[in-house]
């Protein structure tokens, strides 16, 4: 597992609310694991979290660790700061990452790269866990970096 002590974005952005429906995911990232929903009824992966499997309507949704790898499905690079924490920070890169080995679910995170780096749809990426230990409650975000 790969972790970083450097925050991708400045402190002060909203922290994730760890709700009953999503808590296993946040417990997973604290332990450096990427954990998503998997249906006990039909075996399909599901993301984001929901109470019901949209395929077979089973409420028996468990959580399973998946390999922290994917590929870039799409991306954007915001320049205009829309939150006070981002004022003066400059451009940053957001990626939508597809997990081909986990039902092709998609996750959103930051791409750890220079602010003018070329980004390619389809590029292989791996997760980098970014702990926010000082937060109350603490949480860990999942960022992405291109696999060399």
């Amino acid at each position, binding site marked *: 597992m790969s972790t970083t002590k450097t925050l*991708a*974005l400045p402190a002060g*952005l*909203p*922290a*994730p*609310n*760890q*709700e009953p429906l*999503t808590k296993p995911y946040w417990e997973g990232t604290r332990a450096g694991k990427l954990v998503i929903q998997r249906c006990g009824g039909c075996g399909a992966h599901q*993301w*984001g*979290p*929901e109470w019901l499997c*949209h395929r077979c309507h089973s409420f028996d949704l468990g959580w399973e660790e998946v390999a922290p790898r994917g590929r870039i*499905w*799409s*991306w*954007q*690079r*915001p*320049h*205009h700061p*829309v*939150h*006070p924490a*981002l004022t003066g920070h400059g*451009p*940053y890169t*957001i990626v*939508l990452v597809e997990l081909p080995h986990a039902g092709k*679910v*998609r*996750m*959103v*995170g*930051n791409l750890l790269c220079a602010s003018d780096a070329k980004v390619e*749809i389809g590029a292989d990426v791996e997760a980098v866990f970014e702990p926010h230990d000082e937060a109350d409650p603490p*949480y860990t*975000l999942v960022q992405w970096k291109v696999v060399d």
Partner: protein
Amino acid sequence: MSERTLRGKVAIAGIGETAYYKHGQSPDAEFKLALRAVLAACEDAGIDPREVDGFASYGDDRSQAVRLAAALGIKELRFSNMHWGGGGGGVAASVANAAAAVHSGLANCVIAFRSLAQGQFARYGLSRLGDTAKDDDAFLAPYGLISPAQRFAMKITRFMTEHGIRHEALRSIAMASYHHAQNNPRAVMHGRPLTEEKYDASRWIIEPFHRLFDCCQENDGAGAVLVVPADRAKDLPHRPTYLLGTAQGGHHRSAAPVHNAPEYASAHFPTVAKNMWAMARLGPQDVDVVQAYENFTGGVLLSLVEHGFVDPRTANQFLVPENLFAPSGKMPLNTSGGNLAECYMHGLEMVNEAVRQLRGTANNQVPDAEIVAVLGGPMVTPVSSLVLGTEATL
């Protein structure tokens, strides 16, 4: 069983709007703006406002139907309706809901409206989140994905990249709105023309496809239309404008959490457009003028594609300014200036413009316009669209 349809069953008898302002500059409170627009629509229709018996809106409009009814001295309120979903996704749906109420006999005379005063209330383009982000936002906001533009940008990146569509196609969409606004004294951007050079030099909001002029304004104002049974419209002052087709909703799991909609690079119109054309018994080839909601120019591209107006394979060739300019373009687009340059009235201004085109009273009139389509706010979900026509199209 008789055919279940709204085609030709109701008409828009009156349109109204306030003066349009830059955000925060309205001298009037939001509710006062709503009242002004409702009164203007009634006056335009030649109908006593006390006869209105229903209100329909969208986007969590704060001007509640019951308060409007009380303020206006409405005799009997028979229909009040709020369409789920944010922004302008529900603009056509509010007209459709008013139409369904009128046609079904729930009500007789229904206002569909939108009122916004962002000086009085919060802006859309800035974070309205607190210290923690809930639900979907918990997986987005900590990564700096917060504003509407950021929610939609990756749909645009994916679609444009996949189909090789150039940023110039989006520039043409912006140019059309600004071009038309120069001839529309109501437009907030009247007297502020846009050139290709100015567009190209404008700052990035989001790479790779959102420059400043790809993004809508934020404005204060209100707009309203008055919906009545088709029979009644014939006795009113204006040439009747009939609802020919409308639909709302979203395709399979279009609202799947955390950007997991199966058909992701979409404005979410595939089923809505199909249902609207089926009700109208028309297709994109029949339309004389298009009003396509611009939250962002990329969303207009997706809307036009999903309604069949533009083929992604020829988008670079087709989306050039001369094709989009009234009166002679192949597909006159956003002829009052739209959200980009007339006013961001969450698309209600586009319904008013569609009616003007069909009455023959638009500032940028398309000669002999008989059929006008209004494509509501794209990329949110649910979305909605409608198509209006003159009596000759019934």
